[in-house]
């Protein structure tokens, strides 16, 4: 095998953070190389430096044996490197197809001249082709703002695939995908590999890495701690490298075994015939004190829309909602919060966080009035609360004053979590709570959710990760095409049963 990419002694510091510290790695032609590490270990930073989206402090990068220093992502692309960024980099007001081809829109006649027209026909046709290959059921003309997070993620993948690159870098491509889409993606990646394409693959799903990758590099706190063939490594060993101590890796174990019908706690939330066309219709269920109710389904099944409507973020067309047995009208998130509800959104960048603001401001936002005395924010109380969450969720940051936009993806997710934990809501709705969260932290978050339930909080959890859905839920609602396809008790639920309901077989 030939060495396609060599990274030598790469270092990069941000104010207060040594993101990369003397990292070296080699990617062979035609291999799938996994890049592993905890949240904030420096994986995304490494990727950005490779393609010239971020400047390095020190080190060399060799591409096909030649030293390169890309100043701009366009140069990396021209050299044959395609990237899927972790933070979805799409332009909301342009069409899906245009986003796929952004940066090198195909010119038709008079190509090369500034007034040459975009070859729309070819562009839409090619986009459609890639979408089909990926199983992305989206009209290429659709503007991106209309798409859900999972669809956007697939769109990012489509964008990287069409480039026919020699090196494909994927930063957590499956974070928002359900197993079906992931499986589709893996087929494509194996196919690409067999045709000689190299892939750098970043993921917090260890199973994926062991199933897919040939070799891996492990980062911890910006330093390389291991580079090995996947075959020579076990999950436990990998985790030990990542977190710096050894903990047991296990598939999330089934923790609960409640019966399907009558959970013990009092009913806190009941939904009857909730409908919002075209996303979902006739949804009825109830949620009890101390219960964890999972919602499963395929991408686009309407789960996100359902919980948004429940929370008053969107208006429902019809249906009734009861809290503590009393019927309520929830016209805005404010009213939902007043009723003791909280919603962790799946789109953390667009809806969950104010990226330019500090961790402190973000976490304290929903509880400011509680942190105030006589109309004045008690700074000490606020700082103490925020620091406590930074510690307990292990948010990697130089200080609580860091802008959340500067945090790694996983740490951003933890900030959103902290924000909703701080509200002390009685009904917590989590939409994909562990998206982009590393193994160690995931375990902690599961613990946290269970603790919440134990303390009597009613939890509604949308998740595309079947193991986590199965492990945590007392009951699982499965949605298909906007309808309730079925309810499974923890005892009877299995991956296969959920998938069946979700796919309508």
């Amino acid at each position: 095998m030939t060495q396609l990419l060599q990274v030598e002694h790469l270092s990069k510091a941000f104010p207060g953070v040594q993101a990369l510290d003397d990292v070296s790695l080699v990617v062979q032609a035609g291999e799938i190389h996994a890049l592993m590490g905890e949240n904030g270990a420096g994986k995304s930073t490494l990727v950005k430096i490779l393609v010239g989206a971020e400047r390095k402090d020190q080190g060399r990068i060799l591409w096909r044996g030649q030293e390169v220093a890309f100043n701009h992502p366009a140069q990396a692309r021209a050299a044959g490197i395609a990237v899927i960024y972790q933070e979805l980099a799409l332009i909301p007001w342009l069409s899906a197809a245009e986003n796929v081809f952004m940066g090198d829109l195909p010119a038709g006649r008079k190509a090369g001249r500034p007034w040459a027209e975009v070859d729309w026909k070819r562009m839409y046709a090619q986009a459609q082709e890639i979408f089909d290959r990926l199983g992305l059921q989206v009209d290429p003309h659709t503007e991106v703002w209309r798409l859900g997070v999972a669809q956007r993620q697939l769109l990012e993948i489509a964008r990287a695939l069409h480039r026919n690159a020699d090196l494909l870098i994927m930063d957590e491509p499956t974070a928002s995908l359900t197993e079906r889409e992931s499986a589709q993606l893996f087929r494509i990646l194996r196919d690409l590999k067999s045709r000689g394409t190299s892939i750098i693959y970043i993921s917090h799903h260890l199973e994926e890495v062991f199933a897919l990758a040939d070799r891996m590099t492990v980062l911890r706190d910006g330093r390389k701690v291991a580079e090995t063939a996947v075959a020579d490594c076990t999950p436990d060993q990998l985790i030990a490298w990542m977190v710096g101590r050894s903990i047991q890796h296990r598939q999330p174990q089934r923790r609960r075994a409640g019966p399907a019908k009558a959970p013990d706690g009092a009913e806190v939330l009941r939904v009857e015939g909730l409908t919002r066309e075209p996303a979902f219709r006739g949804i009825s269920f109830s949620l009890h004190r101390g219960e964890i109710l999972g919602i499963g389904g395929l991408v686009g099944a309407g789960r996100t829309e359902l919980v948004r409507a429940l929370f008053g973020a969107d208006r429902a067309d019809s249906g009734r909602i009861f809290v503590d047995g009393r019927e309520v009208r929830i016209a805005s998130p404010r009213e939902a919060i007043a009723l003791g509800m909280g919603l962790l959104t799946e789109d953390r960048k667009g809806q969950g966080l104010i990226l330019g603001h500090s961790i402190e401001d973000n976490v304290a936002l929903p509880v400011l009035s509680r942190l105030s005395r006589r109309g004045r924010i008690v700074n000490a109380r606020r700082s103490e609360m925020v620091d406590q969450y930074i510690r307990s969720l292990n948010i990697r940051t130089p200080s609580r004053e860091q802008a959340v936009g500067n945090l790694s993806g996983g740490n951003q997710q933890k900030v959103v979590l902290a924000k909703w934990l701080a509200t002390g809501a009685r009904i917590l709705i989590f939409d994909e709570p562990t998206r982009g969260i590393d193994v160690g932290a995931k375990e902690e978050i599961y613990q946290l959710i269970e603790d919440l339930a134990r303390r009597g909080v009613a939890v509604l959890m949308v998740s595309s990760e079947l193991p986590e859905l199965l492990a945590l839920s007392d009951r699982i609602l499965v949605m298909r095409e906007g309808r309730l396809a079925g309810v499974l008790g923890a005892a009877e639920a299995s991956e296969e049963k959920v998938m069946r309901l979700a796919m309508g077989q």
Partner: protein
Amino acid sequence: MTDSHKSPLGTGAGLGRTVLERYSIALVFLGFVVVASLISPYFLTLSNVQNILVQVADVGIIAIGQTFVILTGGIDLSVGSMVAMISVLAVSSQGYGVLAEVAVALLLGLAAGTVNGLMVTKGRVAPFVATLAMMAVAKGVALWYTNGEPIYGNNNAFQWIGNGSVLGIATPIVLLVLCYVLAQYALVRTPMGRYVLATGGNKEAARLSGVNVTFYETLVYVLSGLTTAIGALIVSSRMNTGSPIAGNGYELDAIAAVVIGGSSLFGGRGNFIGTLFGVLILGIIGNILNLMNVSPYIQYLARGIIIAAAVLLQRRDRQTA
């Protein structure tokens, strides 16, 4: 973007679709025309329609550059003062012939636009401040060069730009239509237009996708300088004067037209058909108030209320700038 759940606007690839999306402003425009022609019998005469089109030509063309700038999320406050600067410097070069006048105008516009663009992209100065500075500088140059006094034209060829005609249609109207066709084509048909929209829609995403955002963000200010130069040529030629106070307040008119036309001041959304309707609506308001001889005091009131109404009448979800 905080408003990611609002509906998109006018970035449509197909023209048909764009017209449909612009439906509401077109309807508002038609409403204006109907009301105006009911109010004044002179309004819908051929000569008055020509008159309106000629009158809006300068601001209309300047609004094209402004639209490009606003599509990237910027703003160009300097266009009004630039009209004054270009007007006096172009006319003062009339001794070298009409081509020299045109060349001076275009070069000045391009130069000032380039400075604006570089201040914004390389200097990282907020567009508002960068072009505010240019506004003061251009005004200073115009006044200082002329000592505050106008330069009268003596070149008949030059007058053709503002007062001549092509196949019976007044030259400013021809220029106006030509510029709009070109701009809309560039926006919806060429990569350049899509990249400008992308830059305004999400600069970081565009950059990561390999769009040279620095280039396109600079380019829009250069284009604004260019269209301002054309606008300045039209006014100067129409007055046959290089006036250091020409273009007073044009920046506000141009920006208002763009925003009334549905473009978002946050960038990424908008098109030229909307801007053109915005320009026409503003032109009609001025025309009809003059035709009706409305008292100047009431004119201010009326203009304010009409502008608010024009925008309120448009489909609601449009308005998020």
